[in-house]
């Protein structure tokens, strides 16, 4: 079985702060990490490797420094790592990104493709299903757990608002994984040492199979028109009243804001 896991390097958004004076993002010194849901997806793949001897490839699209998460993936135990890096890929929205990654996947062998549900810097949850559509593969999103029958069928637990769903799907297929479903393994010491000698393949536009008009900025239907910070907060109102009156004030405020 061949598995390709799509991963992304993201800024640790919990560490991002706003400059209180200019209102702009302070990105300096913000650490980059492997996106948590992607790491969950990688763990699912590595478990299939442990159990069934699957061959695991990781692929990421990004600038050269995204290599760091590919090394991390090597240290966790993957077999092959590909960095999609080309100026032609830059400025892509989710559709153009999914076209680029699907283009790379067309040049690879796979039985299963795993992505994270969503990345913490964009939270869109779109690229996984879009890849599935481009490659005409069935998709199972919000995957919390999966079992393989050793032949071709997966039994998958996917989470929903109301509980969960158990579905069956045959390979080839696409899963989008939740970080909460699985605890990713730590990098082994030996893995870390060896990761630095492993070869990371860098692929550009010429390595992938995609229409140039569908990638990068020019292949992106959506454009950011403007971005802005939410205005600074006005001072709040403080009331010193008895509990019943306090409760009324809160209830009215929630009604006003359509919360209840």
């Amino acid at each position, binding site marked *: 079985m061949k598995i390709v896991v799509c991963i992304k390097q993201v800024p640790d*958004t919990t560490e*991002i702060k*706003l400059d209180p004076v200019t209102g702009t*993002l302070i990105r300096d010194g913000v650490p980059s990490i492997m996106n948590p849901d992607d790491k969950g997806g990688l763990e699912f793949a590595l478990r299939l490797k442990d159990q069934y001897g699957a061959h695991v490839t990781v692929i990421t699209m990004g600038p050269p420094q995204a290599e760091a998460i590919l090394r991390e993936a090597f240290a966790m135990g993957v077999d092959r790592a590909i960095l999609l890096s080309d100026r032609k890929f830059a400025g892509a929205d*989710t*559709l153009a990104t*999914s076209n680029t990654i699907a283009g790379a996947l067309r040049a690879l062998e796979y039985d299963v493709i795993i992505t994270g549900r969503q990345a913490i*810097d*964009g*939270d*869109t*949850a*779109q*690229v996984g*299903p*879009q890849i*599935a*559509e481009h490659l005409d593969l*069935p*998709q199972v*999103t919000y995957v919390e757990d999966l079992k393989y029958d050793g032949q071709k069928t997966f*039994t998958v637990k996917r*989470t*929903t*608002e*109301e*509980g*969960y*769903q158990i*579905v*069956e*799907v045959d390979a080839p*297929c696409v899963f989008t994984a939740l970080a*909460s479903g699985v605890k990713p393994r730590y990098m082994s010491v030996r893995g870390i040492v060896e990761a630095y000698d492993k070869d990371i393949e860098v692929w550009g536009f010429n390595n992938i199979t995609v229409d140039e008009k569908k990638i990068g900025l020019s292949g*992106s*239907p*959506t*454009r*950011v*028109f403007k*971005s*802005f910070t939410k205005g600074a*907060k006005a001072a*709040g*109102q*403080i*009331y*010193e*009243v*008895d*509990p019943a009156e*306090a*409760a*009324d*004030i809160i*209830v009215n405020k*929630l009604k006003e804001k*359509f*919360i*209840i």
Partner: protein
Amino acid sequence: MDKSQYKNVFVFIEQREGVIQNVALELLGKARELADTLNEKVFAMLLGHNLTDQAQECVAYGADTVLRVDAPELESYTTEPYAQAIHQIVKTYNPSIVLIGATTIGRDLGPRLSARIETGLTADCTGLEISDERELMMTRPAFGGNLMATILCKEHRPQMSTVRPGVMRMGKPDANRQGTIEDVRVDFDKSKFRVRVVETVKEKKDMIDITEAHILVSGGRGVGNPEGFDMLRAMAKTIGAEVSASRAMVDAGVLAHDRQVGQTGKTVRPDVYFAMGISGAIQHLAGMEESEYIIAVNKDKYAPIFNVADLGIVGDVRKVVPILTEKLAAARQKK
């Protein structure tokens, strides 16, 4: 592309077991507003099986036309049958705008559709407006809510966006509104139905990740003990909120660590954050000050939590919460 060929605002009507989800009704209200600005119509895309009076409900909430697809393949949601049905509708009716609720269903369906149609999709919009050039301006938070971005989809149609439940205001239904109901027949390509649903299980979920909660009721030292926290749980239940805590309460073993808000816990940005009996140490504030609306109740009127609160009540949490719970329950009942 000739944009004049694309008209009207379409809403995906998400139903589960025949019950239209609130987010679809909220979107109908928003669609009504957008369509009125554009001087166009609102179309509801109602998919399901053995549908009864759901179409009338869509009209009451603002739809001019309901496109109803009633087929056994659509009884409960799976990606491919729903994608095929909506894709056929979009190809036939050429909408200018398509709105979908950002639920686990909408976030499964939306991107699949956008790739099939080859158009843009903007996720989790918090604001939708029509520009002077009649483009849809889609505003969404970026970078974990630190920055807002307004996005356009100028050269592709339809302009698609998903909107999280509770973000748009639900309008009042008007039972006398008139609308048309059209039954649409879809020719399914069943060879593409490759995911089999074995089981759908509903379970009481009290373990929603606090970073994903829309409303958080958070307790601190002022709540005192586990019994005090039961009060907060009861209050949270009346408004569909999750409970979280300051470090003091987690260290005391009242709540698990994954419920802790603050520097060593989680950073949360709910729509409403109740800080109940939390004084507001800087480490706690770091984890919640980006919340949309902060309501604080604390005995000490000099507590730092009041510096970040939008609404502050100086008082004893243990006295305010029971009364508040009653009044919240009553307010929900009336609705």
